[in-house]
Structure formats: structure tokens, C-alpha cells
């Protein structure tokens, strides 16, 4: 008996000695980073990973569609909402209220593209490699461009020492970059856009960038930086590369917002029911008591949507908490999805035509400009008859149409900024008839020269990175 016990216990002691090798445990849901870029599938997955981060709620997943409209004159805050983002709306900006998570969200996308670019030579030369690399360059440029639009001046208004953003092309996590100048920043963005042109595929589907989308983004870039000639060339190239037609027709148009058609959409970030990113929650939520809006259209702006304008379907006038509001329902719901879960349209054909229209008008090609403008207007108004505008009237018509067409898609503040225009809110109230609670008088205007057009650098970044320089709006 005793012997048996000794044997049992000794076996126990010896048996567990082999546990030493049981300390190497692999996770069940991740690859070792060193093995992440070996096959074509790996690159395909990684590229999708970069797109997936555009869905971030601080980026195209929400805030990027609200804040440029809320910080300008398209929206005013609703007195029956939750007062979300009120500090932005009131221009109460500082490092802690700095559109701060967008900074991180955009650089997350950039890191994901940089990993692909760094490892690209693991792929065999050929179309697949080119397309992956082209999309990575294009995404990297787009994310930097979005950052530059938020945090820096447009180059045409910047002095030589004005700061842009940090242009990141590596994956070193210990990097503590300083900001480039505005000029350097925009040069680097263009270099990436240009590098993508010969590489990117022609037809990757609207959920991915392809040549047409890339050229459309380049056209946006050139217009923003005041380079009308190149804006025209890039628009031409985009239209030439189009795989799904041009401006959506008036009959298709309402279906775009329910994701029932891709007509008119060049690139959108796919938001599946599984992803369930509530893009439109930044605007409103519907409840048993009606739609509860955070922001409603500035009444003067709202009044410019004519009854014949198909875009008036973006609004619903209804009561909440006993008051009537004009609610923006552009992102309210697509059939079969949870509230506010819709695809995130990044760039549409109508923008390309309006961009070319503006660039042509600015370069005195009124006929071409009018044609482009009418290409959009004719598909938005029932019974449309061209106004036949020219000169200043044409330019004004183009700007109006741009504001109407791209409303609530995160353009307004940038369109004012690139033209050196101030923000002027209309001093109407938030109710559906323009009565109700008006904006505080101190926030009715923001002069074009205000440093608040350049968002403060987030305080977290200032804390973590001693080389990071603040913006004047950091205070």
C-alpha cells in the first residue's frame, strides 16, 4: 500500500514538471503580427480592415456627417434634443472639445494602409498587387486629406509657417512626429493620390475605391486647394473612368438613402446590419413619441429646398415633445436595418459635376459650367427648366446647388473654409416654422479669419507627443 502511494505521489510530481511547455498559449482570434502579410488573402483582408475603420463613429460612422454642418450654417441645435456636440455648435473649442476622436480615427485608417504598403513586396508583381497598393495609397491620401481639412488651413490661405498635420507613412509605434507645414502636408497628400492613379483597379465595386473614385477625390482635393484647372482634369478623368454612370436620376435618388441603389454613388463605406453602426444617431433617433432630433436645419437654409426638389424628401416635419420640427431623415433608417444604420456615402457623381461646374465657372467656361450644373439640377427638380445663368449668377447658382446637394454630408464648413467665407447663421428658431429657440446671439457668426476654422489638436495628443504643436484654437 505504502509503495503504491509513493508511486502515485511521485508520478504526480514528475507528471506536472512537463507543464513548463504548457505556457505557450495561442489566442483563438488573432494571427501573430509577423504572419499577417503572407498570402493574397492576407492583403485582401488587411485592405478591408482599413476600409472597416472608416466606419468609426468619429469618422464616416457619424460625426464626419454632422459636425461640418453643425459647426457652420446648415444646422442649428434642437431645444428638445440631448444637446450632444453642443460645445462644437457653440464654437466652445479647446483641446478637450476638439473633434478629438476623429484625429485618432483617421490615423487608425492610415496605420492600416501603411502596414499594407510596407509589406507590399510580399506579393508577386501584377494587377492584384497594383490594385491593393493603389487602394492603400488612395485611402492613405483620403484620410490625411480629411485630417487636413479639419485641423489645418487650406494652402491658398496659409502662410509659409502655418502648420498642417503630421503626414504618416510608416508603422513605427514609437514615432512622435511634429506637424508638417500646410504646404508640405498638401504636397504629400497629392503625391499619394497621384501614386495611386496608375495602380488602382477600374472596377472594385462601390464599397471600395477604384480609379473613378480616386479621380473624384483628386477633383475634390484640387477644388479645395483652389486649383481649378486640375479640378477640371481630375473630374474629366473620373467621368471617363466611370463604371456606374453619372448623376443619379430623379427617380433613383430617394433610393440612394435607403441603400436600394448604387446609382450616383462613386464610393461608399459599407455598413452591414451586422456592423450596425448608427450613422444617423448624430442627427436623431425615432421614438414612440416621434423623431427626436439633436440638430435641425437652419430655417433659412431649409426654406431653400423647393417643393419640386426631390431632396425635400430628406426632411420630415413632425412633432416631438409638443413642438414641430423639421427633422433631417437622410440617415434615419434603411428597410430591414436597425435605426440609423445606413451605408456611408463618401463621394457621389453629383459632387464631381458640381466641382467641375465650379472650376469651369471660375475659369470663365460658363457654358461648360452651366451644363455641369444642369446635369445635376435636371435630376433634382421635377419640371426642371434651366436658369441659363452666367457670370456671378451662375457662380451663385453653383454654390447654392452644392450646398443643397451635399447638405448633411459633411461639406459645408469645408466649402466655406476653402473660399475664405464666414459662418452666418440665420437667427431663426429651431421649430419647423422658424420660431422657437434661436441660437445664442454670440454664435450667429464666425468671421472667416477665426482660428476656430482650424480645430484644436486633441489634448491627448498634446499630452502624449511633445513634438506636437497646438493650433491657435487650442487656446
Amino acid at each position, binding site marked *: 500500500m505504502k509503495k503504491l502511494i509513493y508511486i502515485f505521489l511521485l508520478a504526480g510530481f514528475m507528471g506536472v514538471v512537463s507543464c513548463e511547455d504548457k505556457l505557450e*498559449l495561442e489566442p483563438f482570434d488573432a494571427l501573430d503580427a509577423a504572419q499577417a502579410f503572407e498570402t493574397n488573402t492576407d492583403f485582401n483582408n488587411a485592405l478591408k480592415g482599413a476600409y472597416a475603420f472608416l466606419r468609426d463613429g468619429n469618422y464616416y460612422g457619424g460625426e464626419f456627417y454632422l459636425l461640418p454642418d453643425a459647426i457652420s450654417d446648415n444646422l442649428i441645435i434642437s431645444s428638445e434634443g440631448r444637446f450632444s456636440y453642443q460645445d462644437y455648435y457653440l464654437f466652445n473649442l479647446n483641446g478637450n472639445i476638439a473633434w478629438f476622436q476623429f484625429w485618432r480615427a483617421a490615423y487608425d485608417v492610415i496605420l492600416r494602409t501603411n502596414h499594407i504598403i510596407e509589406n507590399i513586396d510580399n506579393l508577386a508583381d501584377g494587377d492584384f498587387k497594383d490594385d491593393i497598393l493603389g487602394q492603400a495609397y488612395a485611402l492613405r491620401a483620403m484620410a490625411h486629406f480629411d485630417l487636413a481639412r479639419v485641423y489645418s488651413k487650406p494652402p491658398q490661405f496659409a502662410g509659409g509657417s502655418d502648420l498642417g498635420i503630421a503626414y504618416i507613412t510608416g508603422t513605427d509605434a514609437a514615432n512622435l512626429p511634429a506637424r508638417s507645414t500646410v504646404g508640405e502636408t498638401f504636397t504629400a497628400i497629392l503625391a499619394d493620390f497621384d501614386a495611386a492613379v496608375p495602380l488602382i483597379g477600374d472596377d472594385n465595386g462601390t464599397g471600395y475605391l477604384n480609379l473613378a473614385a480616386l479621380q473624384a477625390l483628386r477633383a475634390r482635393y484640387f477644388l479645395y486647394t483652389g486649383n481649378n484647372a486640375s479640378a477640371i482634369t481630375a473630374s474629366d478623368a473620373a467621368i471617363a473612368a466611370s463604371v456606374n454612370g453619372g448623376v443619379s436620376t430623379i427617380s433613383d435618388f430617394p433610393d440612394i438613402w435607403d441603400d436600394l441603389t448604387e446609382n450616383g454613388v462613386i464610393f461608399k463605406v459599407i455598413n452591414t446590419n451586422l456592423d450596425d453602426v448608427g450613422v444617423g444617431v448624430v442627427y436623431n433617433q425615432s421614438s414612440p413619441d416621434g423623431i427626436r432630433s439633436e440638430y435641425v436645419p437652419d430655417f433659412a437654409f431649409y426654406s431653400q429646398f423647393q417643393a419640386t426638389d426631390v431632396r425635400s424628401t430628406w426632411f420630415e416635419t413632425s412633432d416631438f415633445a409638443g413642438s414641430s420640427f423639421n427633422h433631417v431623415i437622410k440617415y434615419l433608417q434603411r428597410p430591414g436595418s436597425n435605426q440609423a444604420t445606413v451605408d456611408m456615402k463618401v463621394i457621389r457623381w453629383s459632387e464631381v459635376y458640381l466641382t467641375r461646374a465650379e472650376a469651369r465657372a471660375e475659369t470663365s467656361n460658363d457654358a461648360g459650367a452651366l451644363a455641369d450644373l444642369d446635369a445635376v439640377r435636371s435630376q433634382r427638380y421635377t419640371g426642371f427648366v434651366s436658369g441659363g445663368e452666367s457670370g456671378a449668377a451662375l457662380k451663385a447658382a453653383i454654390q447654392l446647388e452644392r450646398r443643397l446637394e451635399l447638405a448633411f454630408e459633411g461639406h459645408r464648413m469645408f466649402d466655406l473654409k476653402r473660399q475664405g467665407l464666414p459662418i452666418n447663421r440665420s437667427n431663426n428658431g429651431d421649430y419647423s416654422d422658424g420660431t422657437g429657440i434661436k441660437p445664442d446671439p454670440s454664435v450667429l457668426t464666425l468671421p472667416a479669419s477665426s482660428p476656430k476654422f482650424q480645430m484644436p489638436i486633441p489634448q491627448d495628443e498634446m499630452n502624449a507627443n511633445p513634438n506636437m504643436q497646438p493650433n491657435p484654437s487650442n487656446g
Partner: protein
Amino acid sequence: MVTTMSFAQDRTVSGKVTSSEDGSTLPGVNVVVKGTTNGGVTDIDGNYKITVPEDGGTLLFSFIGLESQEVEIGTRSIIDLQMSSDIQQLSEVVVVGYRSVKKSNLTSAISTVDGAELQSVPIGGIDNLLQGKSPGVQVVAQNGEPGSQAYIRVRGVGSVNASNEPLFIVDGVQLNATQYNAINPNDIKEMSVLKDAASTSIYGARASNGVILVTTKRGSETSKPQITYKFQYGMKQMIPNNFEMMNKEQKLDYEVEIGIRTADEADAIRNSLANPETDWFDVLLQNGIVQSHDLSFGGSSETARYFFSLGTYDEEGISVGSNFKRVTARANAEFDLTEFLTFGNNLTVTNSKSNLTRDRNNVQNPFRAIYDYNPYEPEFQLDDQGDFILDADGEKQYNLTRNGFSIGEALLNNPEEERYTNLIGNVFLTAKPIKGLNLKTTYGYNYRIREAEYYNQPGSVLDGYVGDTNAPGSKSDDFDSRFQFNWTNTAAYNFVPVAGHTIDVLIGTEYYKTDIRTVDVNSKGFPSKKFTTQDNASEVTLGSTTRDEWSLWSMFGMVSYNLNEKYFATASLRRDGSSRFGANNKFGMFWSASGGWNMHEESFLSDISQISQLKIRASIGTSGNEPNQLYASRGFYGFGSYNNQTSSDPTQLENKDLKWEENFNYSIGIDFGVLDNRVSGSVDYYNKNTRDLLFDAPLSSTTGWDSRLENIGEIVNSGIELELAWDVLRGKDYNIRLLGSAATNDNEVLNLDNDEQDIINDDSGLTVLREGQKVNTFYLVQYAGVNPANGEELFYDKDGNVTNVWNGDDAIAMEGKSPIPTYFGNFGLDASWKGIKLGLNFYYQGGNYTMNWAFNQGQLQDGASGSRNNQRVDAFDYWKKPGDTGVLPAPSLTNNVVDTDRYLQRADFIRLRNVNLSYTLPKAIIEKAWLQDVVFFVQGTNLWTFNKYFDGDPEVGRGSDESDLTEMGEVTLYTYPNTRGFTAGVNITF
């Protein structure tokens, strides 16, 4: 086995030692000639033979658990002796790492809590019960939710990112913090809190925050079975606040004053029957009910000892929809298979079920809603006549309020339930093949199943907000299982090479493995709220499983030496390998050394009759703290999806050097007792230095990363612990004992290896780690009062100039102000007179600061958007005319509520933690009813609080779980409030 030493002139004395209880022979009894090292031990038949000086002297007989005896030899050559068990000494055997030690032989700082102190208190978790029970152990409730956990800090805060919770071991099995409430406090025999290096080091890489060892009850030594029944019943309430919220009139006045409502609008509401005064505390809160039953059987036979128990604990919370119900069962049994082989098990099975309220920072949390909802907003919609507006079914309709959400409705229609099943225990086999050798192998298991359900019922308000109108209602079911086993093997050998020199050696191995799996399924589209399971749903919206593992492999050893019960020395060594460590640091080695000196045994003190006990202890050594994250050292690409196709992206940065936090720790202590131990106590000094802190080192967000887990930095905690008991009166029928403890903690960040950069807290942004400052020193812009000229809020900028612009860059570290208390302790009284007993225990802590977001900032919004919610009455005390000073800023809708030290408050308090008054029926009465013991009691918890500086409850645990604000005492938000309770009950022993 008899060892002898020769003297010049000596003779032999022999004899037999037997038990006075049953006459059985007693082997292993120490027999020493007093004042010499000459001695031996009795053999298996209780016989001893010892050489003594010719002139006799005194023989000293001693054995653990038996009362020591001194016998004059005289001229006798045969001395037989009967020894009786020493009740006092029996209880003084302390469970320490992998063994037990006589308390008087300890060389380390260990405090013990008798299970009796933890029983019949209306609190669900054993962690919360520890508050004020053990010096140097700070216990703060995370919140007041039924069954919720506590923060336990042993000798300060030594970690920032890894756990600060002690290693919690029940009968040799490691518990997870969510399981503290799975143990029935009535089953506990004793808890040992290991605090210093000497005691914790043998637990290696998990031990740097101290170790709490819980031993559950064994069968009573008396062979007669003992049956005990305990019952208590009582109620609980939110601890009242020390500030006042506005009533309807006041709030309307305030809204008019600050310009968010016109006087006409306010008057309309004032006079409207649709807006009666509503006290939201009354509407949303209720009296909680606590009820518990406990039945246990314990006993023994010649070859077996057993303890069985069954207990229930039900607590109905102070809000609708919050409760905690638990059923525990325990079976502890031990069988002697042969004389040298014992087999046994300890097993507890627990089922608990709770309904939860959401701990979030908006009115979806009832404890925010009670403050936010306005007193003119009714619970249900009313018409102009003040009558209920009924829906089509004739039901009252909830008023969504200006917050757009009725929590009263949600508590009914969005129920959230959590259920735990815990199976915790072990089976063991011990063998004593030769004298002094004790081999033990233990298989411990800890299986926890968690099931959580959340049902957003179709037709509920929340479903209207977030649901799909085409598929109403949504349900989520989370299921996770966590299986942990450990196989622990120890060999202990006790021998006496030379009489008076006792040596204990222990070696062991231990292997831990944990496997955690989760299954989550969500669906939407329910036919009606009656159907709650997902087989009724029209569409599954999420289905996912995860799996994680963790393993630990250890070898350890210990040797201790005892010279004549006078001098003691102990050393230990442990080598831990963990799956969590980086490839370059897979194994950690931890060591300790300690010594003790029972000075009262020395001749120069033994003559001083006033000194009953005097002992000096000292220890030094290391221990570690594992990263919380299981795979933190690895660089990973994880998976997601884009467009319903696989996507991958970098999810973690690699750090091959990642390792444990290393704790270097020394302490020195004195135990004393004077005047027949009428006054006794201990004093300890400790110094705990934590190096290689696990840290999310902040990275520039431009890299696409926020941080990487690294071992950087060093923190030191030091302080003094004092424990004192004074028997003021000792008598046959009456006793009065005063007791108290005090502990200080001085905490400092020594080094961050981070180019002297500040590290700002990620979650709150309110605190900083800076060399030379306390951990989590508040980092805030300084409030400079109000501009007397115009009522503007003013601040100090970085250079100390007053400005009206708040800038986060002007934040400064508030020297000495952190959420960590600088002192804490308890004091109390135990008094008895005949059958009546009174126990009082006060807990206190202080020197800590809390950012009072909830009550100082949230409910004093200075006219900013939050002022639309109800406000404190003091909100009226604002700047009204030039020259006003010492007031709040002039309210304005455009005011920005910014974080400044205006909201930072000192949170010192003294709280009457427990009062217990009991009456034991006289034996004469109960014996006739075949009863051994009957005790009736009434009890109060948290009845009174002294709080000089703080608005609200100063015992601040976490701020808000769903906002990730869970740093102990850092901020207040609207987590479940702490409660006070009154209970009455009876304990009966048959």
C-alpha cells in the same frame, strides 16, 4: 524517536503522555528541560525518555493545540502526564501559504478574521464583509448594488494598470473577483490576510497585492453532530444625502432666472394640473428587503469529519428591477482511509440570480434619473385636469420627460438579468508515511457559468429609439463559462534534529489552467413581450463565440527554523512561469526571508510579570503581479468584417519583454501584550516598492495606436499599521473590550522611465502620474472663483495668472491630492453582560480626494445645458450683482461646464459600519428544549456617517461602469448608491 544529549552528571527521566480528554496516547509532544536545549519528543505510544541534570529542574511539555505544562522533576525518574487541549491556542493556529503555523511562531505580518465576525451581516459578498476587520486592509464598496463587489487594497495602491486586488484563495482554489459573492459567509471558519513579503512571496507572480486565504468550516471535533440554523430579515435604504435638490417652485424659478424658460411658461407649468410636484426619489426608489436562511450540519466520527450547509440570501434592491438572490450548498468531508492516509473534498455549489440596473451616465440609470428628472415632470402623462391619459388598452402612459426617456418604464420593459452558477472546491489526498512527513496532492476546480439576458421588449420606449420598427423587440443572451483547475502538490517535513531546534521544510509544485469561453446571441422581431427566448425571434442579428486561455506553472519551497519557541527564521522561494509573460521573460523568481524573536521568553523579560507577550518580527522579499491581459506580450492581427467579408487589422503591439510587476517589500513589526494581555496589539512598519509597473505607455495617436503595455516605472507605498485591543473589564458575567486599528499610507511615484512626461489617465483625463507625486494625483485647471464685476468663471493659467478662458493645458498636478486615502482604520466596542452582547464597529478613512462630478458638477451646471435637468438648491447661490464674491458663476446657457478643482472634494469620513445587539437565552431554559444555543439579534449597517467636506456619500467606489470610470474613489457619477440597513434575526444551535 528519542534524541538525547549528555551532561556531565545526568540521569534519565521517562514517562508517558496521554490526553486528559480520552486517555489516548499523545505522540510528538515536545519535552524539554527548561532553560536548556536538552529535550526530545514522545514516540508513537506517547513514551519519552530524556536525560536531565542530576539536580532535577523543570520539564516543559508542549504540543500545538495543547496547553503547555511545566513539571518540577524533583527526584522522580518516571513522570507521566495528561495534557489537555488549549482552546485559545487551537484558534491561534494560522493558515498561511500551503501550511498552518502557530500564531506565536509567525515571522510575518498576517492578520486573521474569525468567521464568526463575518456571519449574519446583511451583505452578500465576503469582500464587503472585510471592511474594518483587518488593519492595513482598506475595503471600499464599489457601489451599493445587491451582491456587488468591493475594492480591497492591502497596504496601498501598488499598480496602475494591473490589478490592485489581492489574490483570493478559498481552500486552495483561486477565486475571481466576480465570485466573492458566491461564497456563503456562514461557511467561513477563518480568513487570513497575508500582507508582507514573508507571507505572500510563496504565491509568487500573483501575490503583490496581498493574499487572502479563506478556510471553510470542517466538522466539529466533538463527535456529536451539531446543527445550526440562522435567520435574518430586514430592510435597506439609500444613505441620505447631505444636500437638497430643488422642488417644483424652486426649479421653475431657477429656469426663469437663467433664461431657459420665460416667466409666462413657468407660470403655466406652475398652475397646470398636468404638472404636479413629483418627488422622483419616492417614485423611483423603494425600501430594499434582505432575508437569509442558513442551515448547517457538522460533526465527526473516528475516521471522518464532515460539514454540510445550505444557505439562501435574498436582497431586493432599493430600485425596482434590482435584486440579488443566492442559494449556496456546501459539502466538506474528510475520511481517514488508513492511519496515515486521508482523503477529502471541499465543495460549494452556488446559484445566484440578479436583476441589474444599468450603471451608465444618463437617465437610463435610475440613480441618475432621480437627480435629473425635474420635479414638475410627472411620472405618467396627465391631461389638463390632472387625470391620467390612458392608451388604447386603458393603461397609464409613462411621461418620457424632457430627457425623452422614462426609466420607470424601462425598468419594467427592458429587464436585465444575470445568473451565475459556481462550482468551487477541491479533492485532496494526504499521506503521512513517516513521522513528520506530510504529502498532499490537491486537484482544485473552479467552474463558473454566467448567463446574462437583456430584453428590450417590443413596444418599450427604448425599442422605439434603437429598435427596428419592422422587427420590434430585441433580446441578447450572453453565456460564458470559465473553467479553472489547479493541481497542487506539496511535501512538508517537520523534524527536530536536536531537541529545541525545529525545522520545517516544504516543497511544492502548482499548475493552473483557465479556459474561458463565451457565446453571445442577439435577435430581433418578437411576437410579444410574453415571449422572451430567441427561438421566437424573426431574425438573429448577432452570434459570436470567443475563447481564451491562461496557464501558470510554479515550483516553490520554504524552510523555517524554530529555536525553543524563542527565535524563528523562515525563507521561501518560488518560480512562476505564466502564459501572460513575454517570450524574453517567461519565468519569474520570487524570494523572501524573515525572522522573529519572542522576547518575552527571554529571562531578562520573563521576570517582568506585566509583560505577557513581546515579539519582534522582520521580513524582506519579493512578489509579483501579472498583467490582466492574457496575451498582452504578443503582436497581433485580429479579424473583423467589411462588407460581410473577412477583414484583418493590427489589434495589438508586440512586447516580448513584458513581464510581471515586481514588488520588493520589507517590514518590521512588534506584537505585544501587557497586564495578562488585557492590553494587546501590534505595530508594523511596511515599505512596498513596485517596479516594472505594467503600463499602457501613451503613444501619439498619429501612429494609429493609443498605447502599448510596457513595464515601466516604480511606485512606493509605505506606512504604519497599528492594532490595539483593551479589555477594560473582564468578569464572569460581563466584559468590555475596546478595539481599534489605524493604518497610514504614503504613496509616491518614484520613476516612470518616460522622459519625465506626465501620463494622464486615459479614461477620466482627471489624474496624472508624475514622478514625485502620489499615484493618480488629480490634474486639473485651478478654479479662481468668480469675477466680482461680471460673474464670469475664472481660472488660473499655467503661469498663475487669472483668466476667463479655460484651457486644458493649464491643468496642474494637485500635489498630495489623489483618490488614495492617507489613513484608514476602524474602532469599536464589544461589551457583554450575561446573555446580552453589544458590538459596535466604526470604519474611517481620509486624506483622499474625489472629483465630485455627480453632485457638484452634474447638479450644479451654472445654466449650461445640464441645468434643464433638476439642480441642487445651492445652484441659486450664484453671482447676481457686481461685487458678489464667494458665489457660483453667473448662469448662462453658453456656459461651458469644464473640469476644474472647483469640483474636487476631500472625502474623509467616519462611518458606523455595524451595530449588533444580541441576547443569548440562558442555558437553563433552552436545555429543556434540547437546544444548545439560541441567540436573538438586531443589527444596523451604515447607520451614521460623519462627513465634513463632501457633498453626497463620501464612501466612493466607482464612478460609472459603462463609462469605464472604475478607479476606486476617483470620481462620482451615478452608480448604485450605498445603503444602510436594519435587520433582526436568530441563530439556533441544536
